[in-house]
């Protein structure tokens, strides 16, 4: 089976799975909406109570899961390709730690929540990413330097976050930990809209930049030989990936494991070194399933989705790892 055929079929299967998960996610909850009523309820027909629950609560949350998961998946795929290291993920450029430090500061010191917090964490993420890029820049930002500087900056910010947590009141600490884990609790249309708009711009950009990424994978020399502006392409890709990760982190907290794990899963499913669209779909499916489990597992208490992505995503990655017969296959 050729790469193209395999990519197409995996994408198809993932899309169908995603849609199914989406519908189940909307159907399940305190008010059960039968699966057959889901689609009508989305479009404003059928039982008014179902319409409200679906339209105002479940739909935005499910959409948030899809958007956040896709954004993290895409961002992780781009970073791992650029860094040529399966351990890479958007946190390497300090996004998670920057957003976390800013958010925890907001919760613990300023007492903010809601939109103010979202903006603060977005700011934290972007400023940190810019700082890391600037510090790594020396006639170009080699992947290696970027990663190492990112590690240093992330460690410093994590220390600041820990410090804030030791100085805070326990209730604030709890709220902060929930944010730090990653949560879709109470996400409404006002949360989904900005991310949705951002993705409308960013996702096409990623798709347009995929050929450049394909060339960058062949090494800087071969890529230049094939007519690519290596530094420019890398900068654009980093910008887009950072924007995606920052937006997703601001919307749901640093559910970084999704970014880390979606691309390796997608690559193994497709058996190709580049699987951008599948990575986005894997991320979306992972978030949907995880959020569903997080909501329903303990009945009365809603767990933050970040807990479940780790618990669900990790075993699946390990299973794929164990199944793969290729020696040292690079994830």
């Amino acid at each position, binding site marked *: *089976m*050729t*790469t193209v055929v395999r990519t197409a079929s995996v994408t198809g299967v993932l899309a169908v799975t995603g849609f199914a998960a989406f519908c189940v996610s909307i159907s399940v909850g305190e008010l059960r909406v039968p699966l057959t009523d889901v689609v009508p309820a989305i479009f404003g027909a059928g039982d008014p109570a179902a319409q409200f629950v679906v339209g105002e609560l479940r739909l935005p949350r499910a959409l948030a899961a899809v958007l956040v998961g896709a954004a993290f998946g895409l961002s992780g795929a781009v970073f791992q*390709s650029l860094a*040529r290291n399966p351990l890479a993920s958007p946190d390497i450029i300090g996004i998670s730690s920057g957003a976390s430090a800013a958010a925890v500061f907001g919760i613990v010191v300023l007492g903010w929540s809601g939109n103010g917090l979202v903006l603060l964490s977005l700011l934290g993420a972007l400023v940190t990413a810019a700082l890391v890029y600037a510090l790594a820049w020396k006639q170009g930002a080699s992947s290696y330097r970027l990663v190492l500087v990112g590690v240093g900056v992330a460690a410093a910010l994590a220390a600041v976050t820990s410090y804030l947590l030791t100085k805070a009141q326990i209730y604030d600490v709890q709220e902060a930990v929930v944010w730090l884990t990653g949560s879709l609790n109470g996400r409404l249309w006002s949360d989904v809209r900005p991310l949705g708009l951002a993705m409308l711009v960013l996702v096409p950009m990623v798709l*347009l930049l995929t*050929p450049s990424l*394909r*060339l960058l*994978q*062949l*090494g800087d*020399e*071969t890529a*230049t*030989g*094939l*007519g*690519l*502006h290596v530094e420019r392409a890398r900068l654009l890709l980093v910008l887009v990936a950072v924007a995606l990760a920052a937006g997703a982190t601001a919307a749901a907290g640093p559910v970084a494991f999704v970014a880390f794990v979606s691309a390796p899963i997608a*690559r193994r499913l497709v*058996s*190709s*070194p*580049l699987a951008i669209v599948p990575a986005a779909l894997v991320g979306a499916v992972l978030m949907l399933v995880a959020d569903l489990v997080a909501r329903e597992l303990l009945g009365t208490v809603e767990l933050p989705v970040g807990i479940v992505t780790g618990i669900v995503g990790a075993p699946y990655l390990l299973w794929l790892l164990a199944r793969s017969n*290729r020696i040292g*296959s*690079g994830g």
Partner: protein
Amino acid sequence: MTRTAQAHHTLAAEGLTLAYDKVEVTRDLSLEIPTGQVTCIVGANACGKSTLLRALARLLRPASGTVLLDGQRIQSLPTKEVATRLGILPQTPVAPEGITVADLVSRGRHPHQTWLRQWSDRDRSVVAEAMRVTGTLELAERPVDELSGGQRQRAWIAMALAQDTDLMLLDEPTTYLDLAHQIDVLDLLVDLNRRHGRTVVLVLHDLNQAARYSDHLVAMKAGAVVAAGPPAEVITEELVAEVFGLSCRVVVDEVSGTPLVLPIGRHHAAVPS
């Protein structure tokens, strides 16, 4: 591979000074690559031949001097435009893990693709032909990192062929290949030159192969061109001694009529010299 028009692009270096990290490799080097011929660059290790090739392909920015593609400064041309006229196969190319041969070769089509015109029939046929002539068609779906050194090299050559450029620069393309495949590749490059008028520039480590296959031979030593011209003129016992530090006898190759270098080492010399 059929071509619709015979376009001839020219390549030359003028006063090129190349350096790595402040260490000068060549100084004020000028060289004209004869259009429509096969040129081989030879020399001892670290004489600057790979560096020169990379500079000619704009992979390396010169400290001073210029590289002229069709009479224009190569640095001033859009890089994608350059990639449609000139292709380079570097010495140790990097393949991402898990990439298939077909995928790798198809990436060579990038300079000919735009946002609007992504993957056409011509792209498909060029890729298929490139894989056919390099004998990699049956390896199409195999991952490159699972191939032998020789197979891998042929896959990379197929990618360079898929780029379908008038000027082809190859840095030691016969490394890792067994003799039969070495001759295959060199014969293929000569075909491209004779039938389609492509200008081929090769860095080769095997002096006798260079003598056989080149129309124009460039010998380098310590970053400077020591001799340039037809192999019969360039390859002399004095030149080999000067450039390679090797004493030898030069005879005429019975098979090809080109100069054949017979090295004289410390052993196996029938007549002590």
